[in-house]
């Protein structure tokens, strides 16, 4: 048994492997391509297919654009399809800018990609080629979806989930900045907003039907949802019915990342940021907060983290769990530090330091 941690940064992809999740062998930037300009491209999305361990990477060269690379040997070798894996159809004026999220369906070859500009693509061949989910692209709300500070993207894709205690292969929840949460129950043919109770600070209406800048949604072990909003932290058993605030007790209700425990429904980790105007950790102190009661209370879990002033925050896909029986939790910061803890360990332990700024992490037991 071993654990694989894939780390996407502003300057390439890194990999860490461990037998015990305490000592890590870190390598990178990995060679996606024989040209260095690709190997130091910004990696905004990584995904590890739980069915076959294929790694997908969405990377973007500042000069030569975005693409998708895959590895079937845990990152030792990589390939890029000749044909563009993701491209908008000819009648769409926009062009593909960046993958923000990979997600995997029940079928081993079904892969979803949330991308910039706001769009969802679906692959039926394991990520070799993707097709635009047309109904969401054609949604009448699109004209009112605007870019957040990071861009205009679908950044959260949750196949099979629309409410607690219910899985449905025809259902899906996505989240976008801006736009908010949308859900389908008919395999993507129709989409409805599910933002009731989530607030905005940048629209005339405080709680509109849609248009929120939801930063990340995570599925709890019971199928419920946690959401980190652009100011606001929420939970919901049924997003179509509404969300309730669980921000009380956190040092800030702003942030990007949020991770749900894979087995304990009431447990989640939050990575607070000062505010929409100040993207720094509160008090200039790297910190993580944990709830074990569904957000009723929060407590800091900072053992092992630096006590000195710290200025790097955790971005929306900069934290994850490996989903193991005793789960590991991971996060990386914009200062290039990566930490891990396990559910039976009171300390965070450093996996890597001084990497380029971390954009995303994904971990899996292999």
């Amino acid at each position, binding site marked *: 048994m071993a654990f694989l941690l894939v780390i996407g940064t502003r300057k390439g992809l890194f990999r860490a492997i461990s037998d015990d999740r305490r000592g890590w062998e870190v390598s990178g930037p990995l060679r996606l*391509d024989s040209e260095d300009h690709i190997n130091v491209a910004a990696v905004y999305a990584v995904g590890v297919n739980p069915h076959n361990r294929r790694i997908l990477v969405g990377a973007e060269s*500042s*000069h*030569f*654009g975005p*693409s998708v690379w895959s590895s079937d040997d845990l990152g030792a070798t990589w390939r890029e399809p000749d044909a563009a894996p993701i491209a*908008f159809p000819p009648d769409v004026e926009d*062009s*593909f800018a960046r993958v923000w999220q990979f997600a995997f369906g029940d079928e081993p070859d079904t892969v979803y990609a949330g991308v910039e500009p706001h769009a969802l693509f679906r692959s039926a061949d394991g990520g070799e080629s993707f097709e635009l989910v047309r109904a969401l692209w054609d949604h009448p709300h699109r004209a009112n979806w605007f870019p957040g500070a990071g861009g205009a993207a679908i950044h959260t894709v949750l196949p099979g989930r629309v409410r607690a205690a219910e899985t449905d292969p025809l259902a899906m929840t996505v989240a976008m900045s801006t736009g908010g949460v949308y859900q389908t129950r008919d395999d993507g043919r129709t989409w409805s907003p599910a933002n009731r109770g989530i607030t905005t600070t940048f629209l005339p209406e405080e709680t509109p039907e849609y248009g929120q800048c939801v930063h990340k949604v995570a599925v709890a072990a019971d199928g419920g949802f946690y959401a980190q909003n652009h100011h606001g932290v929420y939970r919901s058993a049924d997003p179509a019915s509404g969300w309730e605030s669980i921000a009380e007790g956190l040092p800030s209700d702003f942030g990007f990342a949020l991770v749900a425990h894979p087995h304990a429904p009431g447990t989640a980790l939050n990575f607070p940021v000062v505010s929409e105007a100040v993207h720094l950790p509160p008090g200039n102190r790297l910190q993580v907060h944990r709830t074990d009661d569904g957000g009723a209370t929060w407590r800091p879990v900072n053992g092992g983290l630096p006590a000195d002033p710290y200025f790097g925050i955790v971005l929306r896909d900069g934290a994850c769990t490996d989903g193991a029986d005793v789960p590991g939790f991971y996060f990386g910061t914009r200062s290039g530090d990566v930490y891990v803890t396990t559910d039976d360990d009171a300390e965070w332990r450093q996996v890597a330091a001084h990497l380029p700024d971390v954009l995303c992490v994904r971990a899996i037991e292999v």
Partner: protein
Amino acid sequence: MTVTVFLPQVLRVESSGAARIDIPLGGADGTARLRDVLDELALRHPRLDRRLRDERGRLRRYVNVFVDDDECRAVSGLDTPVREGAEIRVLPSVAGG
């Protein structure tokens, strides 16, 4: 007519190592455009094409293409005429890194 495309080192992995590629074009001299050259190049090297252009056929922001001595954006963009024997140089812009 035939034109020659010159590629920078960083893109030659997409052209099987070729630094220059001769591109034959149909039609009479004076009727071809830069777009025709890149379309023909795309048929031979599709991954090279998407390093240069997005799926709408637009040149990427930090890719510069010189037709003889003129950067194409200073002429007519992808509609810049190309002459028989034109030398077309693809260069990454000074930005990025």
